[in-house]
Structure formats: structure tokens, C-alpha cells
């Protein structure tokens, strides 16, 4: 027996208080004077003796209360043999149902193991069935009813999640600590190496827990489509490039020969292209498909590799694409910057997905155009912007549109930057003679529009319009402090300002490698595609259904089988949901956007390599040894058993007894009238 907080035992000194009250103070009681005691007889002492007994009992109870209170704070414990706590066994039967268990009949074998364990249970033994996937799901409590346990095993369904042995260990630790029971954990699994947590400490088990492995299957070679890179949107089917990575996960006794595999590109159930790749054992091969003849709208894409392995489920990889028309970019120019048009068009059209189509317009023409269909508008140093165009642009931006304002010599004469409404101070010049030029010194590399511009490395700026930023955020500055790129949010839209030109006159940016990424990124940012969530997801990923702004609108999700996943309440209130299986999910977010999601299992599940025996032994050694006894078993089998619940119960009982005795002892005597009434 020991104490976790022995200093609290000093509180036992408080027992002196009832001693003082009951024994010392008692002797100071003054006798009460009475004229004569001739009618008080000796025999009447019995009642006093009775009360004296009560008095002593009261003293004992109060002293016991104080002692129990001090002991309670000292938190005593005894070391008990863990097995002696409960002579019966408590089993946790974990059945792995992760994606890799789709291999052959692994799941049914694991269930058979679980059933045999249930059959071996003795009367009084208790067991719990848990299903192991991305999370640990307890299917029963610790029960001793074999029929219920068997029913729980039968109910285990295959999942596409990735197994996590770290989660299993954490669950078992929690269970052991809360139940104060020695547990015998049986794991029926393919014991995939990839299911181990990053840190071995996460596998730690309670010392009273015994781990028993029931390996299912054996490591065999497996081929899988590991990854597919496909554009999210297709604007020009001929330019589409789909890349697939085929991986070979070799078994321990594999032949060291490469294997030819046919890889097919399937769109909406139709095979479009097939390629053959050579895959070395344990290696990877790339298959690239050019062109994807997708119809307008969403299409269900799939890359397949020839089957013949143990796990056919990973021989295909889903992806979703959307065919759309290129979006129009209105380039407003007064004709004084032909080279700027040239450079910008070239950069925009060099993009692989041909997302944008450039349309040139003069300011007076642009003022009369419908801007709402444009992805964004570029004002290329047009000097004075016609009032009608500026009004139209303001409405366009406030409604969610975007404008790129390019400043140049024509803008230097203006007082304010159009739309951004910033004052134009002057033009910063740097002479061409003597290599006098300006560079970019500060740049927000995390901004979506400037993410791949390599800090405009090597670009020389000879002239920039000095704008004083009052309402805008500066994204990049030149080394003389002149803002180069500014951004201002206006209503629902945004305005990006570039304070130098796009021709090869006031800077040499169009001649540098950072030009095309800048145009591409800024165009994508202005067109609003950067905020979209991905459409190709891993199982157990979360998909956002709504933002805080659209609370009341309903969202809808259809699973690969066409079933609605959301209840009516979830449809109007859920912020996100988890995709839990492979396939295509149709999603309608609360904002009204329709999306096709392609969900695939985590490809780490395809690697069927098992955990080495040494690692399994180490894992098992973190818990107790099955049937361990003697000196080795003493340290693990003995565990501190806290006594505070029993002390607390005892304290409550003593407190109740003290209340009863004190009530009887200190209750005022009934008056003669009351006594007479009671007698009557």
C-alpha cells in the first residue's frame, strides 16, 4: 500500500479537534445548581449512560470522518495483481477492414479468426469487437454473449479507409485505463507495414494489455495505379495531357524481372487510349495520354492497369474532369502598346489548358460591351478612362469581377489610378545608361498571383508609376520603394495594379522566365479559380459544403451508388462531410455550384508488405506478455489500485451515521405538553 500524496496525511492531526470537543471540553462543563436532588435517583443514570455511549460513538464517527478525509487526500493505493482484479478474461477482438483487406478473401478470413476466438471464450469471459479502419469503431461493449459478438463480427463491412495501428493502440490504452482491466487484444489483420504510425511511441500499450497477432494472408506482388494527374477543366480537348503513375509493390520472393502492363484511359466507361508500360519489380512507370475527348460538363475518368494481382481494387484510379469553353479576357488597349498585346497574348496562350481567350478592345468599344461574361479585364495603360467605361467596370468589380490595371507613361499624367482610386504621385525613372535600373526588393511570395514568379529575378525596371497606397495592399515593391504590384478589394471583386508596362520598353519583364508564370497565375487568380476546392480526393477526406455566408441554402451529396448522403437537417446545416469510399460523388454546395468528386483509396494501402517480425515483437513487448509470471511478470502484473472511491463511499456512510447520531444526541427534549399530546 502506498500514498500518491502522503503529505496530506498530516491532516490526521485534525483528529485533535473532536478530541478537544468531546473529551477535554467536556470536563469543563459546569454543574447546574438545583435545590435538592432528592427526587433524582441512581437508577436514572442508565439513560445518561446511554447518552454517554452515543457521545462516544459521535466522537468516534467524527474522528473517523477526519481520518478518512485526510486519507482521501493522500490518495492511497494498493498494488494488486492485475489478474486478480478479475479472474475472467477481457478480450478485444480487432478486425482489420481497411482497403488492403479487399485482397483476395482476407476480410472473411479475419472474420473467421474472430469467430474462432469467440468460440474459445469460456463462460464469464467478456469480449468486445472492434472494426479497424481509418478510425477504430467499437461494435459492442465488453460483453459475454457469444451470439451478440458473432452478430457484430458478421456486421463488419469492407471499407476503403487506411488502417492505423496507432489509432488501435490509443483506443486500447484508453479502454484499459478506464476499465481498470487487463486486456487481451487480438488483431486479425494483414499487418501492413504502411499502417504503422510515424512514431513508434504511438503503438505503446498499457502494461496490463496483452497483444496477440492473427496474420491474414502473406505479402504478394501487387500493381496499382498510384496517381493520375489530369486537369480539372478541359477547354481544348486536344491539348489535354493525362499522366498516370503505375507502381509495382514487390513481394519478398519476387523475380527481378520487369513486367509489361497495359494501361488504359477510360472516360465515362469508354476506353479512349491504351498504352503499355514496363514496370520493374518495386518500381514505377509513367503513362501519358494526350488528348481527352470529353463532352461538355462533368466526366468520370479512370485509369486502369491490367489486372491479375491479388488486390484488383487498386488497379484503377478515378479522376473527374469538366469540359468548358475558354473564358474571355478583355484586353482594353488604345493601340499604343502593340507589343504589350503580343507579349500578354503569347503568355496567356502558352498555358497548357488554354483556359483563356484574349479579346482586344479599345476603351470606347469596351464601354459598350457586356462585361459580366469576361473572366477578367485588363486596362493596359489607357490614360484617361472614359467615364462610362469606368462606371461599367466599377459595377463589374462590385459584382465579383476582376480588373488588372497596367500603368505606363499614359497613366503618369493622371491624378488617380482608375478603379483602385489611389493617387498617382510621379513616375520613377532609371536611366538605361550605366546599368541604372530598379529591381524587385520586396514580394509577397505567398500571394496566389505571385506564387511562381521567382521574385521577378533578373528583371530590370526602368520606369514605374509611383502610386501612394492608401486603400490598397502592396504585393511587390521595387528597391527604391515604388510599389510594383498592388491589390485592392472592391465590393465582391478585386483590382490588381501593375505600375509598369507589359511591353519591352519600361522593363524587360516579358523577356524573362517569370513573365509566363506571372501572367498565368495572375490570370487564374483574377478569374477566381484559385479558391476552388480539389475534385480528386482520398477516402476519408472532408469536403466543404458551405461557408458561413450561405447558411440557409441546402447542399446535396450523392454517393457513387446514387444515394443521398445528407439528411434534411444536414443538408441545411452541415459545413462539410467526409467521403468514405471510392467512386464518384456528385456534390451541390450551398452556393449552388455543382461538382463531380473523384475519390480513391489511399495508395499506401496498396503496399501489402507486412510489418517485420522484430517490429511486431517490440510492439507486443510494450504491453504484457501472455501468461507471463514470476519475476518478469511481477512488474507488469502488479498495478496500483486506487482506494479513493472506497474511501469516499466510506466517508459518505460515516457522515450519514454522524448526522443520525448527532441528531439523536443533540435533539432538544420534548416539552411536557408535547409529551402529553404524544401520549394521548
Amino acid at each position, binding site marked *: 500500500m502506498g500514498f500518491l500524496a502522503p503529505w496530506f496525511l498530516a491532516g490526521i492531526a485534525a483528529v485533535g479537534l473532536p478530541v478537544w470537543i468531546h473529551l477535554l471540553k467536556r470536563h469543563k462543563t459546569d454543574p447546574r*445548581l*438545583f*435545590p435538592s436532588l432528592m*427526587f*433524582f435517583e441512581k437508577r*436514572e443514570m442508565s439513560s*445518561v449512560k446511554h447518552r454517554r455511549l452515543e457521545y462516544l460513538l459521535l466522537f468516534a464517527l467524527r474522528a473517523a470522518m477526519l481520518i478518512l478525509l485526510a486519507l482521501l487526500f493522500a490518495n492511497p493505493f494498493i498494488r494488486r495483481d492485475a489478474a486478480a482484479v478479475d479472474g475472467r478474461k477481457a478480450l478485444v477482438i480487432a478486425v482489420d477492414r481497411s482497403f488492403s483487406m479487399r485482397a483476395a478473401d482476407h476480410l472473411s478470413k479475419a472474420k473467421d479468426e474472430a469467430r474462432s476466438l469467440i468460440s474459445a471464450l469460456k463462460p464469464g469471459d467478456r469480449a468486445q469487437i472492434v472494426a479497424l479502419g481509418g478510425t477504430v469503431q467499437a461494435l459492442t461493449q465488453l460483453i459475454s454473449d457469444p451470439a451478440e459478438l458473432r452478430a457484430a463480427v458478421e456486421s463488419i463491412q469492407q471499407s476503403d479507409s487506411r488502417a492505423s495501428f496507432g489509432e488501435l493502440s490509443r483506443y486500447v490504452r484508453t479502454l484499459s485505463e478506464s476499465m481498470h482491466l487487463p486486456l487481451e487484444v487480438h488483431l486479425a489483420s494483414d499487418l501492413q507495414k504502411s499502417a504503422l504510425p510515424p512514431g513508434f511511441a504511438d503503438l505503446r500499450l498499457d502494461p496490463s494489455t496483452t497483444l496477440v497477432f492473427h496474420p491474414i494472408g502473406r505479402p504478394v506482388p501487387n500493381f496499382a495505379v498510384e496517381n493520375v494527374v489530369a486537369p480539372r477543366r478541359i477547354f481544348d480537348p486536344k491539348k489535354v495531357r493525362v499522366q498516370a503513375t503505375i507502381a509495382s509493390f514487390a513481394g519478398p520472393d519476387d523475380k527481378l524481372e520487369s513486367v509489361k502492363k497495359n494501361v488504359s484511359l477510360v472516360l465515362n466507361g469508354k476506353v479512349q487510349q491504351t498504352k503499355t508500360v514496363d514496370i520493374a519489380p518495386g518500381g514505377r512507370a509513367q503513362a501519358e495520354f494526350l488528348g481527352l475527348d470529353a463532352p461538355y460538363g462533368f466526366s468520370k475518368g479512370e485509369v486502369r492497369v491490367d489486372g491479375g494481382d491479388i488486390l484488383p481494387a487498386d488497379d484503377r484510379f478515378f479522376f473527374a474532369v469538366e469540359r468548358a469553353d475558354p473564358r474571355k479576357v478583355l484586353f482594353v488597349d488604345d493601340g499604343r502598346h502593340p507589343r504589350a498585346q503580343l507579349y500578354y497574348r503569347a503568355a496567356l496562350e502558352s498555358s497548357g489548358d488554354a483556359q483563356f481567350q484574349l479579346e482586344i478592345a479599345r476603351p470606347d468599344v469596351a464601354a459598350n460591351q457586356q462585361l459580366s461574361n469576361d473572366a477578367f479585364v485588363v486596362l493596359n495603360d489607357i490614360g484617361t478612362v472614359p467615364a462610362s467605361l469606368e462606371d461599367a467596370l466599377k459595377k463589374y468589380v462590385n459584382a465579383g469581377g476582376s480588373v488588372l490595371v497596367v500603368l505606363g507613361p499614359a497613366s503618369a499624367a493622371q491624378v488617380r489610378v482608375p478603379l483602385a482610386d489611389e493617387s498617382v504621385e510621379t513616375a520613377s525613372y532609371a536611366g538605361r545608361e550605366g546599368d541604372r535600373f530598379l529591381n524587385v526588393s520586396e514580394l509577397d511570395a505567398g500571394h496566389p498571383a505571385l506564387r511562381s514568379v521567382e521574385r521577378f529575378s533578373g528583371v530590370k525596371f526602368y520606369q514605374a508609376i509611383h502610386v501612394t497606397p492608401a486603400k490598397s495592399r502592396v504585393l511587390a515593391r521595387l528597391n527604391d520603394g515604388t510599389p510594383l504590384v498592388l491589390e485592392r478589394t472592391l465590393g465582391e471583386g478585386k483590382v490588381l495594379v501593375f505600375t509598369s508596362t507589359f511591353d519591352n520598353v519600361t522593363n524587360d519583364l516579358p523577356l524573362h522566365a517569370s513573365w509566363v508564370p506571372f501572367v498565368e497565375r495572375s490570370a487564374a487568380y483574377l478569374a477566381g479559380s484559385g479558391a476552388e476546392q480539389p475534385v480528386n480526393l482520398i477516402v476519408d477526406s472532408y469536403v466543404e459544403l458551405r461557408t458561413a455566408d450561405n447558411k440557409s441554402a441546402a447542399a446535396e451529396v450523392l454517393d457513387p451508388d446514387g444515394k443521398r448522403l445528407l439528411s434534411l437537417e444536414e443538408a441545411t446545416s452541415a459545413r462539410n462531410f467526409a467521403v468514405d469510399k471510392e467512386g464518384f460523388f456528385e456534390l451541390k454546395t450551398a452556393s449552388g455550384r455543382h461538382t463531380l468528386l473523384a475519390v480513391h483509396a489511399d495508395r499506401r494501402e496498396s503496399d501489402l508488405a507486412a510489418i517485420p517480425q522484430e517490429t511486431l515483437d517490440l510492439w507486443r513487448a510494450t504491453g504484457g506478455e501472455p501468461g507471463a509470471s514470476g519475476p518478469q511478470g511481477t512488474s507488469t502484473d502488479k498495478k496500483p489500485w486506487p482506494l479513493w472511491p472506497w474511501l469516499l463511499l466510506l466517508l459518505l456512510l460515516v457522515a450519514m451515521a454522524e448526522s443520525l447520531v448527532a441528531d439523536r444526541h443533540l435533539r*432538544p427534549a420534548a416539552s411536557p405538553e408535547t409529551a402529553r399530546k404524544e401520549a394521548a
Partner: protein
Amino acid sequence: MLQRFLDPKVLGGISGLDLVAKTVVDGFVAGLHRSPDFGFSQEFAEYRAYAPGDDLRHVDWNVFARTEKMFLKRYRGETNCQLTILLDMSRSMQFGSQGMEKIEYARFLAACLAYLAHGQRDAAGIVIFDDEVRNFVPPSTRQGQLARILHAIESAKIGTRTQFENPFRHVQEFMRRRGIVVTISDFWDSPEKIIKTVAPLRFRGTELVLFHLLDPEELHPKLNAPALLEDLETGETLEVSPDYAAHEYPAKIQAHIADIKSRAQGAGIDYFLIDTSRPLDGALREYLAIRRGKL
């Protein structure tokens, strides 16, 4: 209204014993005048044949004129009586729960009786005793007798324990003529012994009155918890439970009172139980009733 002045608690606030007695008795007598039952002023009582030596002032000359015989006309108020007050000053009389000790009440009662007797021109005397006679003022009608009695009452000190044998033997020795003997005590002794001690006085024609003074607490002791009681006279201690004090003790004290009362009645002795929380008029009324009826 006047009853208020007889309240023991009120009397306790009056400093002088003579003033207390005067307040009580004057108020009491004034109250009696309104009641025909208790009138006792110079009423004609009897005729008696003249004997040589009698005061000629009391001869009824009207009767002599008609009958030529001399008769003395006697009035009740003129009948002399000898009042002896026996005041118990034992330690048990020191008890009091109502703001006034029994001894104070007894002092007031004795003073009032002496004052009343003095007003009636009765000879009054007092014996202060506990287990022995501590002070003795012989009955007399002399000038200053009342002052002597009151002084004896006031100067009396609490003694030890009650012992009736010696004081009563002493009283028997000096009692030469009939009179009234009033004993004021709490009578904490066996009824048999008390009556046996006081009864011999009765044989000589003396009227005996026992004023039994008891505090309300003695009649119905109130205990909220077991208490250690100490006997005032013997110093003996005993733990007493509230249950006993509430049920058995009152029955025993009532039996004790009833025993004294029945034995006193059997011996021709007047017995009067006085609760010290009650006014003094009951005791005075008792005295006057006896005096009127017995003379």
C-alpha cells in the same frame, strides 16, 4: 391595577424591605375593602362580663344603663394575636429561575406578614433558621417591633441545610400562649418528618401555617440536554437526562407536594403552596382568612 404591585419581579426592584411590605399590604388591603367577603374593620365581636382591672373605656355604658350590669364590648380588630414567622434560610432557598431567588420571595412574604400583623396590632415575631436557629425576635407589640423584625429579615444570611427539629424545639420552648406560627420554607425533606416535627405545636392550640415556596423550575425543570445537577445543600452531583426531568421528576414532586398537603390536613395544619412566579396576595389572603376564622 394594584395586582401589578404584588408581582415579585416588580417588588424585587424596590430597595427597602419596609417599603416593599407597605406597598404590598397597603395595596392589598385597599383591594380588600372593595370586597364584602373580606371586611374586617372594627366589627363588634362579643360582650364579656366586666372583671376588675378591665379598662373602663371599653364598658358599654348603654347596656349598663339598661341592665345595671357592666359588660365590656369587644371588637374583632381589638382581639390580639401572636404571629410567629419561621423563615427558612437554608441554601436551597437560594435557588431562583425567574429572576428572583426563593429567599427574596420569602423575605418579602415574611415582611408583608409582619407589616400586616403590625397593622392589626398583633404581636409579631420571627425566627430565622436553617439547621439551627440563627436569629430570633420574640413576638411583641412594642414600639419598634416591626423595625426589629424587618432588620432581622434583612440581615439574615443564607445558612447551610434545612433541619426542622432544632428550630421547632426552640419555638416550642418560648411559645407560652396561643398564636399563629407561619413557616416559610421549601420543605426539602420527607413529608412525614416535616409534619412530625411541626405537629406538636398544634397541640397547644397554635394555628400552624406552612407556606411551601417552590420555584417553577423546581416544579417543571427544563433540560435540553443531559445536565450535571448539583445539590445546593449537600453539594452532591448527578447527571440527569432531559427525558427524566420532563416526565418522571414532575410526577415525583407533585406526589411529594400532595403527601405534605394530605399529612398537614390530617394534622390540622394549613398548607399553602406558593409558586414564586406568582404574586404575594395569595399568601396574605391565606393568613387573613386564618386569623379571622380562628379568633
